[in-house]
């Protein structure tokens, strides 16, 4: 079976800066992967490239999802819309349409599955509306469905973005820091929703995260980026405090890291060598 996401030697340069530097990746259908890395390391750019919203440099290879081309050598594939329909996206900065209602913002997720004409004229049927409301309930903001999107609090907007991706019924979900603005309870709820959905329906899931504890708790596989390159790709059990210190900056500063790496180090941890991958 074709990979849920296959990225082949992809780079992205802004001026003189390499935001993504020769990255190759393969995510299997149903697989769940956490993407970590310092701010500015290229996580968002990689996700945008994977969904064909950003074009890679011309010297790059291609990106395919379930065998459908997204882009190749820096040119958008002709099938990209079909590919996108099976990729659910959660944007870091939400990308909601502030002047439309929360409900409409979520319903937009259903466009790919609807008849073209019906979608274009916004003639959503009751079924779709109910699915959208259910997704909103799932992330805990069903009572705000009728508000305009820009009237919501930060965390509520973030959850609208997640609900939109849920409604899409995608086979691969790429979520860019989906819990950044959420309180612990909502964050857990959202992560549970995403993981349950992935597990129950075999949906592949790539989530970029800053909270390393969530990454290790929810994901078996972790990909770490640094300055545009993938510096680690392996089971989360192999992540060590030393590696994290290295990942987030060479300085020897004491970091606030999740509990299992608690900083009064040298405790129970058995760091299986942290060799960075390719």
């Amino acid at each position, binding site marked *: 079976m074709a990979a849920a996401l296959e990225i082949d030697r992809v780079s992205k340069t802004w001026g003189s800066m390499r935001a993504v530097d020769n990255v190759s990746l393969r995510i299997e259908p149903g697989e769940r992967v956490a993407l970590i890395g310092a701010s500015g390391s290229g996580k968002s750019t990689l996700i945008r490239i994977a969904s064909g919203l950003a074009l890679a440099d011309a010297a790059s290879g291609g990106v395919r999802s379930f065998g459908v081309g997204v882009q190749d050598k820096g040119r958008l594939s002709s099938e990209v819309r079909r590919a996108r329909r099976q990729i659910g*996206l959660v944007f870091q900065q939400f*990308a909601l*349409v502030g002047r439309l209602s929360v409900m409409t913002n979520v319903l*937009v997720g259903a466009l790919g599955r609807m008849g073209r004409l019906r979608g*274009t004229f916004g003639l959503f049927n009751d079924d779709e509306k109910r699915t959208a409301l259910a997704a909103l309930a799932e992330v805990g903001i069903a009572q705000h469905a009728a508000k305009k999107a820009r009237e919501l609090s930060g965390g509520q907007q973030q959850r609208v973005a997640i609900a*939109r991706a849920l409604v899409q019924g995608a086979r691969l979900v790429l979520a860019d820091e989906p819990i950044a603005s959420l309180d612990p309870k909502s964050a857990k709820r959202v992560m549970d929703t995403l993981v349950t959905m992935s597990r129950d329906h075999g949906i592949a899931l790539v989530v970029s995260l800053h909270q390393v504890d969530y990454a290790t708790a929810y994901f078996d596989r972790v990909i770490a980026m640094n300055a545009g390159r993938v510096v680690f790709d392996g089971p989360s059990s192999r992540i060590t405090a030393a590696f994290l210190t290295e990942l987030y900056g060479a300085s020897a500063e004491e970091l606030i890291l999740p509990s299992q790496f608690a900083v009064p180090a040298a405790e129970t941890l058995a760091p299986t060598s942290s060799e960075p991958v390719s």
Partner: protein
Amino acid sequence: MSAAETAHRSVVAGLPAPPVTPLATRLSRLLIAALTVVVLVFCWYEAEMNPAQLVQDAGNMATLGAEFVRPDFTDWDVYFNSMLETLAIAIWGTLLAVVVGIPFGILCADNVVPRWVAFSVRRLMDCCRAINELVFALIFIAAVGLGPFAGVLALFVHTTGVVAKLFSEAVEAIDPAPVEGIRGTGGTWLQEVVYGVLPQVLPLWISYALYRFESNVRSATVLGIVGGGGIGMVFNETMRGFLYSQASAILIIVIVTVSVLDMISQNIRKRFI
């Protein structure tokens, strides 16, 4: 109160100086500035600008202006009817233009269509604007004869050129994020436009459409040719007859109409902002 400031100043020493604009950029900026000044000065003389004279004979303006402050509404029914006629023609002319201007406007915006499409459609719209209404009016007179319908058609073509331009430039100034949001779901190009672009530009589009409606109401050129009557022509006639009291009555009617349209525009836009 400059506590933080002092705090940072200590850190400053080791830092790179703030970025400096490169010489080439500076020079080219200087060149553009110099060129602008030269053009402006040249045009100053070409346009025979002479502000002193304006001040000197300001009294004349007052004398003439005063003749407009005694409106004479005797013929109000004539004005009212001409205004109705004008409104009817302007409504249809503008409506058709907006309906056609929306697709053309979108096709002119190079952030939603390929560059060559935008370029070609833009040039077509340039022609619609640049070719004088007189020409269109004559062409339509040839087909449908004198009368308001020819006026509607001439206004329609010209207004299409204007609104398509304005519509497209609003589209080019949008925030791309919501559009990407729709694109990410695999929506079609049209769906991106409907859900991502329209909600962002609607307030501006309404503003443009009503502005053009207003200026079609004000304009007299076309109606003067097709013989449709209309308030603009009645006004021109009063002016030509130096009937300033009657002219000012018409002006008051036009001002009220324009103000009402402006308030309607305000109101509709509020709902979409």
